[in-house]
């Protein structure tokens, strides 16, 4: 995004609570008059960021600049910003009028007086009663609450309270209006209405809006610019169109709209392999690299058998008002498809996707995560085509395994965990590779080796195309065949399904 008329700038802002970061390395600039939205799942740090801008929290490190000046040490009441709170936070002891007039009572207006000797001095005065009255009346009109000025706020509906909260903020003519999920407590219809009204208000007032939501649809319809966040970090900044059409990574794609996401492998110049077939695409990635492939449901075309690229079987159909949503199976992979054309469930069809609608993105490695792991009858975990020793008691706090191999939890229940689906996570530094092929559980070929400053990051690919990403201090050669070993205690297991099904 272009740096035009920057009003707010966050530089390397971090916020740490105890020992975890709520906001990490946040860099952002906001142009004057923009409607910018922080979007992300619950707990990703949106509120924390907003509160740092408003002044309720101090960044652990980093700078916040307003019109080029550092406001980091300014208390909230000295910042020319106003907030619309998630739960309105109206003053119960004041009526609608006094709630809105609250901020005006503390405002100082500058005016000039000419002294006898002709010099001019600026003095400050408070708003007069008439000025306050005019401003409040105008604000009431903007939020469409003219008839409510002497009502007690506790007698208002949620939507009306919301409007009062907005009026109370905009009456101060802040340079930036901060809104923390302001529509979260309203029902769907009211929310849609208020979305339009807020957008209209933004257009009329010309104030910069910073809006927080976890509703992607809301973000897409209202914003000029969206900041997608996850785990305290910015994943992508862009216009709604950019973010929808060109998600930067699988997280963004998944969070914005519905998506099919697969792990693919580049097998040639602009050729990617996923869903068991090779597809033409338009992105250029190094051959052999594992990538995330994202395909929007509306971009998958259902064709008669034999005419598309891959055979699929329709297993589910839902009518969604203006289109159908089908679920089709290609081998073991699910494909979501949205189309207006009707098809019968259980028919075999063929699917095709235009090359430019196949989005390919870098796969970020931070750990080895095996989503399709399961426990076998010997209480070992199976993933990546091999069987591994592991500690299954980590699945439930305080559990143990008895001599018959049954799993018992502290509440006295017993389980037979055979076939339980789990997620196995192994840190990259905890995988050991060896050239003694008998040493490990499985063998694979080193397909890539990257120097990471103080160690190598090596990717070992097995015959079944499963990858292990390994941090190692030793040099290996590409195409070496090695065996892979993981210490029992280093395999982290988490439950993927409800354990109660396995109770005996």
């Amino acid at each position, binding site marked *: 995004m272009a740096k035009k008329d920057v009003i707010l700038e966050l530089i390397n802002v971090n916020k740490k609570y105890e020992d975890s970061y709520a906001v990490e390395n946040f860099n952002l600039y906001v142009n004057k008059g923009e409607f910018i939205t922080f979007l992300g799942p619950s707990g990703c740090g949106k509120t924390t960021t907003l509160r740092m801008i*408003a*002044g*309720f929290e101090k960044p652990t490190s980093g700078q916040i600049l307003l019109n080029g000046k550092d406001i980091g040490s300014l*208390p*909230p*009441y000295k910042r020319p*910003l*106003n*907030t619309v*709170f*998630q*739960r309105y*936070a*109206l*003053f*119960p*002891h*004041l009526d609608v009028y006094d709630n809105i007039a*609250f*901020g005006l009572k*503390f*405002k100082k207006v500058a005016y000039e007086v000419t002294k006898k000797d002709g010099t001019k001095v600026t003095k400050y005065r408070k708003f007069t009663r008439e000025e306050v009255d005019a401003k409040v009346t105008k604000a009431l009109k903007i939020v469409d609450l003219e008839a409510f000025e002497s009502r007690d706020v*506790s007698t208002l509906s949620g939507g009306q309270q919301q409007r009062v909260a907005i009026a*109370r*903020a905009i009456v*101060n003519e802040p340079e930036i209006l901060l809104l923390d999920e302001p529509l979260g407590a309203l029902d769907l219809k009211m929310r849609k209405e208020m979305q339009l009204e807020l957008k209209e208000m933004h257009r009329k007032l010309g104030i910069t809006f910073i809006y927080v939501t976890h509703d992607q649809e809301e973000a897409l319809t209202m914003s000029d610019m969206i900041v997608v966040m996850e785990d305290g970090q910015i994943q992508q900044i862009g216009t709604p169109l950019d973010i929808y059409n060109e998600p930067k990574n699988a997280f963004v794609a998944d969070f914005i709209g519905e998506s099919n996401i697969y792990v693919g492998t580049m097998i040639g110049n602009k050729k990617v392999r996923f869903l068991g077939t090779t597809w033409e695409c338009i992105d250029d990635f190094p051959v052999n690299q594992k990538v995330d492939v994202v395909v929007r449901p509306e971009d998958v075309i259902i064709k008669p058998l034999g005419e598309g690229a891959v055979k699929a079987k329709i297993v589910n159909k839902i009518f969604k008002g203006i289109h159908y949503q089908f679920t089709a199976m290609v081998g073991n992979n699910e494909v979501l498809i949205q189309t207006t054309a009707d098809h019968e469930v259980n028919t075999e069809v063929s699917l095709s996707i235009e090359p430019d609608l196949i989005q390919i993105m870098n796969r970020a490695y931070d750990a080895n995560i095996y989503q399709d792991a399961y426990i076998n009858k010997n209480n070992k975990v199976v993933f990546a085509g091999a069987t591994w020793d592991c500690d299954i008691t980590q699945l439930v706090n305080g559990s143990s395994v008895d001599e018959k191999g049954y799993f018992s939890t502290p509440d006295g229940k017993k389980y037979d965990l055979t076939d339980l689906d789990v997620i196995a996570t192994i840190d990259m530094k905890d995988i050991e590779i060896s050239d003694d092929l008998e040493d490990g559980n499985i063998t694979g070929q080193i397909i890539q080796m990257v120097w990471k400053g103080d160690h190598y990051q090596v990717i070992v690919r097995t015959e079944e195309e499963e990858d292990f990403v390994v941090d190692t201090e030793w040099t290996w050669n590409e195409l070496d065949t090695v065996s892979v070993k993981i210490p029992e205690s280093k395999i982290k297991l988490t439950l993927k399904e409800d354990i109660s099904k396995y109770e005996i």
Partner: protein
Amino acid sequence: MKFRRKYLSIPYVLFLVCFVVIPVLFIVYYAFTNKGGQLSIDNLIRFFSDKTNVDVLLISFAYAIINTFICLLIGYPLAMVLANRKYNKSSVLVMLFIMPMWINFIIRTSATRDVLNWIGISTGAHSELTTIIGLVYNYLPFVVLPLYTTMLKMDRSQIEASLDLGANPFHTFFKTIIPMTMPGIVSAATMVFMPTLSSYVISDILSEYNVVLFGSYIDLYFNQADWNFGSFMALIMLLLIGLSVFITRKFSKDDRGGRSIW
């Protein structure tokens, strides 16, 4: 006959009649009769013709007001600290302030007297001061508790909203925090004010009978078997307390529409 829920109130109504309505009627009866049992307004004339009586009443009011004021002055910030999770991680501190209430009131007050004398504030020489100290010490928990509960319920976001709208901490305190805790302040004040008016054990013990509050004055006449005049003064106090309840009611309009217990 079908059981109706209102029958459950019969024991309570009986209790009320026996221990509230009938005694009050007795008070009214004694207040407006003379020793011989004839209807008269002698007591009324006697009360207002002797300046001492009115003085005792006014002094009692003064003590009640001062006590309430000091209790609020100490109790409000205290409750604020106690209700703030940042300073008070467990409720142990709250317990500490409530615990004196578990000790027998007479023993507690006598102990206060001994402690005060021991540290050199003589109950004989500084009767007014020691009475106030005793009153404040005894009634502080009654202020802290209602304030503490109101403050626990108070939403932090309104304080933040106030700061956000440009009110500095000083304005926020007086324009937002105080008004929002008003119901708590009113019930705390009533919990102190009314009992102080009629209290006499504390002033008796801690002032060595130098400070005479209205309660001990009434007690005096009852002890001298002058039931008629005692009753008349009890009636006056009843009316004054009723009046103060009525006035505080006006101020304590609870923001959620519910009325406070007073």
